[in-house]
């Protein structure tokens, strides 16, 4: 009886085998949401209800959920940009060296999101920016959608006339989130490999925002377009050229079901080291770690740091041909569908490692206790940033001074203490 009482009771509203197999292999017990549960892997719709003001859900200390209540501060395209802009301005006001700008007024260390405006609200600001560079291409993305739905490219103001009308007529009416768009400067010079465009999908687990504790999954991957990249204006409408989402690419003629256009990040590293050298490659990866941590720090003050929550994000990053990484967006509910056999294995292991960290020892959780998990349970995760550890200023212990191998924790510590010692990439 006591052994039975000790088993974690789980619920999910996402019917994916990579999840369910992981719960079952731990001997956890499936229950429904109306019963007493310890672990609920929710969809983003459900988390809205759980924490909404009306239902006034209160989670007890033996209950964990897989989303933060207001994750959309990071995962909605418009709010992410808003929070980052706010964060930068705050740092600037404090006089922090991180907010240093160059002679063109661009942030040196915090310019990692392409220029973005909300539509229709910022339409006029957008037009001003557009006119500075009339030959540029911009990408329109609906705020509330995913999987590449509703995205299109424009290179003429006439293509978004609709939003100019709306901005004039509805300046005081808040648009429903379904119609709001963000428009960002399109990165038309992406790094190409084998002539094709790709983006990076990296998984980041956040246990707590204040203090910030986050982990990066080592087995990220590149998602390649099946069609050769061309910035030619005649192909602006060809989504197979421009959008790397698997949901789109898998309908292309050349989609391959064995590898699904996915290339391990380790291959990317090998290729870049071999063709560009170790320093620039390390710099690139350090920057990627940096922008992930900065984006989390940007939203940390506004996040509801509920101790019953953890979250595994899917970060989408594009690298341009100058080897600069750009944060495109963050997904709260990265796809758990497997497009290939390898994919299934990867996602299974991802969930497994996530659960090992989020639910220590696979036992009924105790949210009052918030210890860092020991290194052995991390699996394929590595510590990306641990604010407590960074501030305690402890000795380096077993951190080696190998820029490629470290997760950037050392570099981040230096930055966090305010010293402009950005040694790994200055």
């Amino acid at each position, binding site marked *: 009886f006591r052994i039975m009482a000790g088993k974690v009771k789980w619920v999910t509203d996402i019917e994916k085998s990579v999840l369910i197999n992981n719960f079952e292999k731990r001997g956890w017990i499936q229950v429904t949401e109306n019963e007493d549960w310890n672990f609920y892997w929710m969809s983003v719709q459900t988390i809205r209800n759980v924490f909404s003001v009306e239902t006034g859900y209160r989670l007890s200390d033996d209950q964990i959920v897989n989303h933060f209540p207001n994750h959309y501060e990071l995962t909605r395209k418009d709010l992410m940009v808003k929070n980052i802009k706010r964060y930068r301005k705050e740092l600037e006001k404090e006089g922090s060296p991180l907010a240093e700008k160059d002679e063109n007024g661009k942030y040196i260390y915090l310019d990692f999101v392409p220029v973005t405006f909300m539509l229709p609200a910022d339409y006029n600001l957008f037009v001003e920016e557009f006119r500075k560079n009339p030959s540029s291409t911009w990408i329109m993305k609906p705020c509330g959608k995913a999987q590449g739905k509703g995205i299109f490219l424009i290179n003429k103001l006439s293509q978004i006339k609709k939003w100019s009308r709306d901005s004039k007529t509805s300046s005081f009416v808040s648009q429903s989130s379904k119609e709001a768009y963000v428009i960002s400067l399109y990165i038309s010079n992406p790094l190409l*490999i*084998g*002539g*094709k465009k790709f983006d990076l999908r990296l998984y980041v687990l956040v246990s707590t925002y204040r203090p910030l504790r986050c982990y990066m999954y080592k087995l990220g991957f590149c998602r*390649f377009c*099946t*069609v*050769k990249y061309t910035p030619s204006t005649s192909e602006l409408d060809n989504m197979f050229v421009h959008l790397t989402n698997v949901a789109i690419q898998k309908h292309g*003629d*050349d989609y*391959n079901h*064995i*590898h699904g*256009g996915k*290339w*391990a990040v*380790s*291959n990317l590293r*090998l*290729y870049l*080291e*071999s*063709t560009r*050298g*170790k320093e620039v*490659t390390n710099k690139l990866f350090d920057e990627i770690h940096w922008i992930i941590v900065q984006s989390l720090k940007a939203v940390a003050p506004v996040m509801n740091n509920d101790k019953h929550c953890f979250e595994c994000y899917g970060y989408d990053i594009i690298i341009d041909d100058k080897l600069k990484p750009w944060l495109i967006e963050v997904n709260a509910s990265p796809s758990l569908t497997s497009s290939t056999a*390898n994919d299934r294995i990867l996602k299974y292991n991802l969930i497994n490692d996530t659960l090992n960290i989020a639910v220590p020892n696979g036992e009924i959780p105790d949210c009052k206790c918030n210890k860092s998990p020991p290194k052995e349970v991390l699996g394929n995760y590595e510590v990306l940033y641990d604010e407590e550890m960074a501030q305690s200023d402890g000795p380096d212990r077993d951190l*080696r*001074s*190998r820029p490629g*191998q470290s997760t950037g924790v050392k570099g981040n510590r230096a930055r966090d203490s305010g010293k402009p010692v950005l040694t790994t990439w200055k």
Partner: protein
Amino acid sequence: VSLRKPEIKLESLKEDIKDFLKTSGWEKKLQNAVYSELNVFPSPCHPAAPPEHMKEPLAYMRKAQGSWEKRILKSLNSMCTELSIPLAQKRPVSEQKELLNKWNEMGTDEPDLSLFRPVYAPKDFLEVLMNLRNPNYENGEQPSFRSHLGLIQVPLKVKDIPELKEDFSELSLNTGQLGIDDSAQVPPEFFENEHVRVGQKVLAEQDSAAAQQYVRQGCPTALRADLWALILNISNQPEDILYYEQLKSNVIQHDLLVDSLIYKDVKLTASNDDYYFVFEDYLYQVLLCFSRDTSVLEHFTYSSATPPKSYIRGKLGMEEYAVFYPPNVNYNSFILSVAPLCFLYHEPPKLYQIFREMYVRFFFRLHSISSHPSGIVSLCLLFETLLQTHLPQLFYHLREIGAQPLRISFKWMVRAFSGYLATDQLLLLWDRILGYNSLEILAVLAAAVFAFRAVNLMEVTSLAAAEAVLADLSTLKVMPLLQIFLFATVT
């Protein structure tokens, strides 16, 4: 120009030229070129020896290679007849234009290739090798524990472990290696940092011989592309780029049957490979050019193979319209030997040159029948001998259950392990091929893999089960395996 200077005196002209060569770097380039030739061409033989002897000294080997080539050519010709496609023909202008436009994305083409079949499979080649016999060798002995139990039954001399230990002395336990001593647990001060420093120095000196010695301990990833180019004596000459462009225009103008075979093979192999699919388009570019590259013909003076020659349709006998068919018409292995290079060289002309040089130095030996120590026959025999000598129980067991080890390892060796190992491991292996100027390490690695999985292999009871145990090599670390097999196994 500098000879017009008044300081130049006739008396010291010889010395001055020598100095000039040194300071301008030409001395080094000459040295590298000579060193390169020494590596590639066989030692001079007896002045009275006919040219066939330079290709292959043993008559029965020459004969076997000749029969094999005839068989391939017959197969190609019958495919042409069946499909009513000529071996070679000029492309209509519209098609030429189309191909030029699509040059960088041939992967998106979808020609109907269903009727093309590979000319032969690796196992067909293995059958031929198994049937090789030396007619001058009388083995009247009763089979005993001394008999060779493997599939290869020709008495070529192969090395044993003590000899291999000497040859591969830089792989010993006491010598630092990349692939072992650069792992995360080892502080870089112990070996890695110094090794990188030495590598940079070697590159600065532009010394081929030093580079070849250096890479025996592995190449740092950032230096590998340049080090291999130095060893293969490939520099960025404008005439090389022009040559590549010339080949490209040959491809545009003429259509070869072989092109379709290449196309089909790329689709079957690299396009589906987790590591290589990204580079699919480069593979077409390199391989299509390669089959029109007559400079490759030079290496046939020291290869046992004689390439079948054909002429563009309607131009029979006109040498400028000759095309040759490389002996390995089954492009499987070609493709997989180009693909790893795409991780190092992202410009097609350079990629092409590196591949061509690797082919004429090493890979051609994997596809032709010869007695050379790096030839596929010797490698097979070396593998079997190592296994039978050092893991006799395993060898015997596998033989008993109908799983002759060579049947499994053949495909690894014939592809130099490409497509089986993770790319970073493969490159560490190929570092050593270049460093030791020999393919023998492929046989040693194959034996080491069997040794590593010996426990599981002892428990299987069928060929299929043995294949399953050895199906996935992608997690293997090659250098520890080699080191343990050569230097840490009790013999």
